[in-house]
């Protein structure tokens, strides 16, 4: 089985978010980038297929050279080969069109993408990819087994779970549940050294244009002070909610 794990390079969740150039660009200064958590669950599941079923695991990222440390970490965790598509990722359509070319050329049996990246939370890439490539698709996937060319997946639905069976080639939008946080792998020293020798191929971007353009970014307004209302004074609470907060 040949697996491609699509990896986004995203800011760590503890990063302080700021913008530059008149609030038109994300300020990467002092920001630590990591493997998108939804992708890391998928990568860890792919490692399981590698160890138990002899799968080959490639990773692909759309990004400039600055994403390579994140890709090397994925290689240190155990992926066999990396493909960097040399373009700055913009909207979901652009990223999906770039990845589609790599998937077509690589003839992958299984493509694991995160349900969404935690930076812009678009949640579009796996769905667009499936449509573009005509592949079977399971989104919000929380469990995946593969036997021969048959896959059994569980996806999260409103208020419950849905178990589906489908066939390869397949693309999933994965998330926590594929593996648990305690299963995530910390790269070891030998893995880090081996990652140095693994192929990280840089391919040029294919010809496509983003469908959207960022205009400006805006941070949520800072939280105001808290007003404490005496537990016995319901009338004042109702008045504040009605007249000041205007929520009732």
């Amino acid at each position: 089985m040949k697996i491609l794990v699509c990896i986004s390079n995203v800011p760590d969740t503890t990063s302080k978010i700021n913008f530059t150039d008149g609030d038109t660009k994300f300020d990467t200064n002092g920001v630590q980038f990591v493997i998108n958590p939804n992708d890391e669950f998928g990568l860890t599941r792919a490692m399981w297929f590698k160890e138990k079923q002899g799968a080959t695991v490639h990773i692909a990222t759309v990004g400039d050279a600055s994403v390579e440390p994140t890709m090397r970490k994925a290689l240190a965790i155990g992926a066999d080969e990396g493909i960097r598509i040399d373009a700055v990722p913009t909207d979901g359509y652009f990223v999906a069109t770039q990845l589609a070319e790599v998937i077509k050329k690589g003839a992958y049996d299984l493509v694991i993408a995160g349900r969404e990246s935690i930076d812009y939370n678009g949640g579009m890439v796996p769905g667009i990819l499936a449509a573009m490539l005509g592949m079977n698709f399971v989104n919000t996937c929380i469990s995946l087994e593969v036997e021969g060319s048959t896959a059994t997946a569980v996806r999260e639905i409103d208020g419950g779970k849905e178990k589906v069976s489908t066939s390869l080639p397949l693309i999933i939008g994965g998330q926590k549940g594929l593996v648990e946080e305690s299963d995530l792998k910390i790269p070891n020293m030998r893995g880090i050294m081996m990652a140095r020798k693994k192929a990280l191929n840089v391919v040029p971007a294919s010809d496509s244009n983003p469908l959207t353009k960022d205009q400006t970014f805006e941070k949520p307004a800072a939280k105001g002070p808290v007003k404490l209302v005496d537990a016995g004074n319901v009338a004042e609470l109702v008045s504040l909610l009605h007249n000041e907060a205007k929520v009732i």
Partner: protein
Amino acid sequence: MDPKAFSAPDYYLLDDVLSSEHIMVRDAARSWVNKAIIPIIDEHAQNATFPKQVIGGLAEIGAFGPMIPENYGGAGLDYISYGLLMQEIERGDSGIRSTASVQSSLVMYPIYAYGTEAQKKHFLPKLASGEYMGAFGLTEPNHGSNPGGMETKFKDQGDHYLLNGAKMWISNAPFADVAVVWAKDENGRIHGLLVERGMEGFTTPETHNKWSLRASATGELHFDNVKIPKKNLLPGKNGLSAPLHCLDSARYGISWGAIGAAMDCYDTALRYAKERMQFGKPIAAFQLQQKKLAEMVTEITKAQLLAHRLGQLKNKGKASSAMISMAKRNNVAMALQVARESRQILGAMGISGEFSIMRHMMNLESVVTYEGTHDIHLLITGADITGIPAFK
């Protein structure tokens, strides 16, 4: 405190001069320490028990012999990576770092540097995987700063050597499978011998009632007419310089490790000072607390620069024993001072096991003494710049 909230001081942006591979090594070790050491270490230190369950994790992450070549089971990393690993492990606990240091620098290194091919092939992969744990026997009851005066001796009996003597203050001794033991031959020349558990007359009583390195197993090595097969002698080097070269490697690791302990104390104190309210404001707003914190981050930054430059020199084979002495002495004393000042910032909470500071402080009292005392390292610098050894 939540280990994930830890923020490492990097005042002079040293991350910029580290390679992405160094950062990956550092971050991997930091994640492992958050997961495997910090949640369990206080209980083990309180109960004076060594957390044997971390041996597998230390091996898995690659903390045993990271600079030993891959064909012998190591990771083949450079010395800055080794230093960063020691820094992160000691952020967890000096005792766990000691276990990794001893295994890597004092057991695997001498076997790699002075051992036969058969010894390397037999011992190094087992030590790297944690299947074997090792100890290093140099210090004796009557010979600490003066190891050349050692009394442990061995005699050539034709088909084997006969070893007699005792070593003390030996990390990992109680559970070690193999000990690198330094002893004098009949001509008074020091050699390294590989003494294996199970050899008749070899015992390893544990040292109890320590107030320091409580989560590390310390013991003695007793040799009562132990028959050592001749194939267990390290042939590559003899004389006092042989064990001292091993100490260079371990002391180098300690100079980085101490920074880890200091960073943990400083970060804890900084966070606490910003949250703890007195007189209607956080105590971080008071000048005397700011003085402590500002001096701490200054000293940590200087220690980081010292360690980093020493790492570059070590990678080029240019780090002398005296250079390593300077860094070990400075950085451990720095860490001890940072621990003491941090303890004061936390007030009474500073003595609680809820926080790591007091444990680090007690551990560092050992670290400032072992692998060359604070005073001896100063005299090594003195001897180096004057050409006149004051300790002979």
